[in-house]
């Protein structure tokens, strides 16, 4: 070999494969304003639709008068429930097995509910038209408090369900009851509580909030009357599912529906479901024969399009005096709003909330979830969360702190004492999951050492003493959080959406010159799939990531997949990519053997090609193999180099992490300062450390927002009072703390590349870290639990209630 021959390191680096901090290829267009979003879709003759929305939380709709609106120049049509009934679309099915009004049918059930859809030649005319639609309402008593939903005299919200004692998930106990979901062993758990030396009980609420992607939900629908085909450009996290749903409800053949999700400006669960805007735009296009665009504004997005959380979790832990947990009992009151439109796998009415035993070895547990209707917007989407895992992690992490406080133990020490041990994996949890792998003790100890946890506790003790002496008005809190996520929905044995198993897919086609295209069933909303998917292929088959183009979002060209949410892309689609790449590699090996005139078994893969074992100079690069695939394949072999994989994961993956938040709170104003935030994430094999870090930063920022102020709040009459970014807390870079990230690597044993998924971990683990920090700060003044969000005035209120301010 001469000096010019690249070294093994250089050859590996040239691939920019797994483990490389490869720069995001999509950022070239995003940072230059050259992305192509739904609102960039402009078709000749395109019309614009917009909604008349209800000012009331609960009212009967007596009449809708559209004459004046139709006189507004540019207004072409006003669609109401009556119009939709002619095509049987006044109601639509939800992913949770309920039905939802597309447009108000006799009644409105939440403020800003869609009442009529005005179609006009431009957006201004549409809004002028909206202001001329006269709706006559007869207000009805609103039901805002979920704890009153099942009172015997509670108003009847869903008249369409009158007499239905069974819903999609079993019996209904009350006219406002949706389902009861029970998991675990009640008798064993009750017995554990009877025997317990120490118990705690607390009602822990995770308030209603919203994913609020910067790009709101939107679509352009274009119906071609001649071909009978409907094309929909939309902000869809799951384009294939949308196409199937549209086909089923609109009774159009699936091949005549083209769904295209172009660039998406953030999803966070907000863009999984189907919304009235999509149906109305499609119907409007069919009615008018013109393309119709619907783009919701910020207020509409925040107030009507899918909230998240709203779980009220009465939590009990049984333990020994030494702090060994012996039982967990949780009852959740789940506020679903007016329709059950949760975007969970169909058989899971409360998502994967039964991960609520967390990272701890609970011998027994029992969980009940009651879902109820209220006069609030529907939703319950997984906001940067794998189906209610965030709620579960918050519940158990808060409860463990409360137990530590009762036992007089350090919260980190209590966790270390109760962790599932490395040798217990695969671990079967009391509520039915099989945790794939983990090493919790190492992660926790690394967190404690890196942050010098012991010194921080000492500082806190000193500050508390100084506070009591009146020398400072600042209190200090340490928020420990150790979370276990459950992501990668999911194995077909327990996960489906409307009967479609939650596999995912990849199709790779290598071109003669050693370049290729990979098409996926997933859909990036900012996660950087175009970058990372190519890196997996690069390492697997030895072709530089730069030579692989990744394409997602077009249902005509992409293989069928269930989309991107719930941190499922890497665990499911990432596996499909590796499997498809391995099929390519297997065929490549046969071609190389033929060309190098040896038996296949005599070849070994070496970074970017195949080498004859023991004869290092006999080598054929993957690039050359690609060329050979198109001109000189072995006799009997089909030409070409192409593979498809549909991957049905054998299990979920279980990422975990150890977080610490150090916070100071000024009791006189309630103003807090996050002094330090340390996040250690273990997401198994790390594909692109830079993208992981970016995901962690983003997830922590959202967690910070949620814990410290971000909420969707209603007043007593059901008006939403947080309908804009003035009041809905969206932190800017000024408010956002500095993030310190760290990691350990415990690969998933069942995943082809050992990767577990990371997008949501920081939101799951972050919220309890912030909330525990606030609660820890106040605990020495005698409080056990302060509900989120912890914004300034509520912190002050807590200080005042505890006697720390006059």
């Amino acid at each position, binding site marked *: 070999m001469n000096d010019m021959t690249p070294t093994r390191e250089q050859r590996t680096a040239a691939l920019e494969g797994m483990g490389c901090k490869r720069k995001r290829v999509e950022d070239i267009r995003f940072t230059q304003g050259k992305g192509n979003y739904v609102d960039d879709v402009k078709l000749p003759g395109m019309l614009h639709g917009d909604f008349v929305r209800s000012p009331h939380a609960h009212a009967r709709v007596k009449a809708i008068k559209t004459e004046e609106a139709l006189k507004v120049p540019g207004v072409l049509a006003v669609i109401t429930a009556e119009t939709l009934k002619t095509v049987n679309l006044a109601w639509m099915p939800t992913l949770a097995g309920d039905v939802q009004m597309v447009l108000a049918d006799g009644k409105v059930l939440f403020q800003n509910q869609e009442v009529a859809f005005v179609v006009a030649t431009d*957006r*201004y005319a549409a*809004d002028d038209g909206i202001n001329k639609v006269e709706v006559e309402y007869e207000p009805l008593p609103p039901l805002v408090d979920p704890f009153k939903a099942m009172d015997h005299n509670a108003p009847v919200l869903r008249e369409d369900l009158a007499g239905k004692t069974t819903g999609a998930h079993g019996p209904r106990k009350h006219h406002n009851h949706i389902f009861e979901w029970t998991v675990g062993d009640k008798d064993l758990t009750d017995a554990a509580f009877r025997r317990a030396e120490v118990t705690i009980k607390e009602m822990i609420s995770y308030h209603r909030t919203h994913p609020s992607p910067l790009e709101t939900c939107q679509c352009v629908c274009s119906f071609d009357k001649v071909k009978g085909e409907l094309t929909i450009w939309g902000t869809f996290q799951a384009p294939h599912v949308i196409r199937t749903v549209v086909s089923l409800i609109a009774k159009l053949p699936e091949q005549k529906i083209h769904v295209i999700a172009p660039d998406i400006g953030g999803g966070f669960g907000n863009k999984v479901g189907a919304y009235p805007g999509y149906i109305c735009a499609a119907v409007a296009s069919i009615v008018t024969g013109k393309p119709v665009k619907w783009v919701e504004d910020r207020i509409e997005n925040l107030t009507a399009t899918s909230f998240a959380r709203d779980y009220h979790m009465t939590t009990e832990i049984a333990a020994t005096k030494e702090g060994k947990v012996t039982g967990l009992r949780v009852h959740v009151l789940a506020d679903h709003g007016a329709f059950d439109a949760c975007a969970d796998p169909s058989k899971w009415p409360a998502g994967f909330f039964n991960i609520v035993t967390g990272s701890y070895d609970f011998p027994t547990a029992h969980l009940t979830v009651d879902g109820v209707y209220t006069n609030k917007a529907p939703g319950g989407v997984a906001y940067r969360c794998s189906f209610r895992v965030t709620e579960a992690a918050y519940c158990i992490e808060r409860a463990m702190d409360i137990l530590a406080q009762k036992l007089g133990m350090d919260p980190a020490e209590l966790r270390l004492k109760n962790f599932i041990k490395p040798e217990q994996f695969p671990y079967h949890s009391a509520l039915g999951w099989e945790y794939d792998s983990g090493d919790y003790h190492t992660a926790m100890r690394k967190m404690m050492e890196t942050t010098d946890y012991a010194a921080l506790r000492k500082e806190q003790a000193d500050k508390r003493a100084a506070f009591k002496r009146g020398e400072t008005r600042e209190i200090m809190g340490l928020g420990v959080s150790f979370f276990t996520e459950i992501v990668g929905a999911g194995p077909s044995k327990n996960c489906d959406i409307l009967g479609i198993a939650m596999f995912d897919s990849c199709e790779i086609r290598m071109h003669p010159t050693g370049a290729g295209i990979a098409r996926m069933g997933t859909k990036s909303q900012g996660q950087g799939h175009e970058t990372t998917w190519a890196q997996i292929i690069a390492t697997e088959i030895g072709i530089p990531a730069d030579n692989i183009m990744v394409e997602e979002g077009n249902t005509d060209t992409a293989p069928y997949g269930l989309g991107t949410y719930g941190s499922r892309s890497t665990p499911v689609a990432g596996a499909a990519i590796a499997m498809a790449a391995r099929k390519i590699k297997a065929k490549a090996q046969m071609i190389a053997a033929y060309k190098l005139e040896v038996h296949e078994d005599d070849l070994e893969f070496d970074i970017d090609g195949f080498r004859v074992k023991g004869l290092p100079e006999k080598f054929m690069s993957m690039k050359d193999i690609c060329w050979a695939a198109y001109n000189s394949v072995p006799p009997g072999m089909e030409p070409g180099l192409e593979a498809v994989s549909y991957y049905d994961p054998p299990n979920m993956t279980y990422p975990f992490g150890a977080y610490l938040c150090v916070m100071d709170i000024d009791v*006189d*104003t309630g103003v807090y300062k996050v002094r330090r935030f340390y996040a250690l994430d273990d997401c198994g094999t790390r594909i692109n450390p830079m993208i992981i870090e970016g995901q962690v930063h983003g997830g922590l920022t959202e967690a910070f927002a949620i814990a410290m102020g971000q909420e969707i709040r209603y007043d007593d009459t059901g008006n939403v009072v947080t309908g804009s970014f*003035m009041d809905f*807390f969206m932190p*800017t870079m000024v*408010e956002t703390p500095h993030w310190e990230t760290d990691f350990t690597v415990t690969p998933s044993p069942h995943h082809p590349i050992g990767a577990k998924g990371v997008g949501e971990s920081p939101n799951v683990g972050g919220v309890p870290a912030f909330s525990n920090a606030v609660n820890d700060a106040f605990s020495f003044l005698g409080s056990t639990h302060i509900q989120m969000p912890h914004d300034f005035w509520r912190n*002050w209120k807590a200080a005042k209630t505890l006697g720390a301010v006059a």
Partner: protein
Amino acid sequence: MIPGPFSYHRPATLAGAVKLLADLGDDARPLAGGHSLVPMMKLRLATPTHLVDLHGVADLKGISRDGDTIVIGAMTTQHELLTSGDIRQSLPILQEAAALIADPQVRYLGTIGGNVANGDPGNDMPALMIVLGANFRLSGPGGEREVAASEFYQGAYFTALEPGEILTSISIPVPPAGHGYAYEKLKRKVGDYATAAAAVVLTMAGGKVATCAIGLTNLHETPLLATDAANAAIGSNLDAATLKQAASAAEAIMAPAADARGPVEYRKHVGGIMVMRALQRAAGRAA
């Protein structure tokens, strides 16, 4: 979030603007930076059918010094206040406050005239104007007149401006050299209006407060001059008891609305805290 129809006018002179407003009548509104008016139009809370844009009127811009008075043209932006040497030297409190208004994008367009003429209790400049003893120059169909800032605010969005009148400039007497000042503003995040804010301008003599004026933002439907609180501070060395007394005197005149920033009780309490902190910081700065 789409405004209703309106027509747009851009006069080149003050007289032209005044005439346009008179001719177009009640449905016309002056447009300055548009950062209060346009959001309200998008929500259709304001539905003017004519906007008279003041950006073409050169006379309304600029900062000048006239003896012991600083004169600021109504169309001077917050950004221009922040970069003006005259303001830095003579009215530093305006810079401290302007930097706490919204964000750079808003400050590039938002004007001092729009800020004080708007009448929103959340605007930061009005309380400062009262504390500094500013006078507003108004021009309308009936000619020109001056109104003291302290007489200008009548209620939320109600001011002494008559229909068709334009605020042309603001005159502010330069506070004595060596004065101390502070604007303490509690807000939830960048771009938020005050949960509570207090402006203090004072002078010290022999370690004691000699003169003092205190203004309050967003703690009432109009900006407030907290005279009793200032009187409590005068003559003291701002010991803990005096600070508390000043805070209670200020709280006594506050009547904020409850909103997502907090309940009334909280907003008054932190209003008092802002007064104490502003007094201390101002005193620390005074020569």
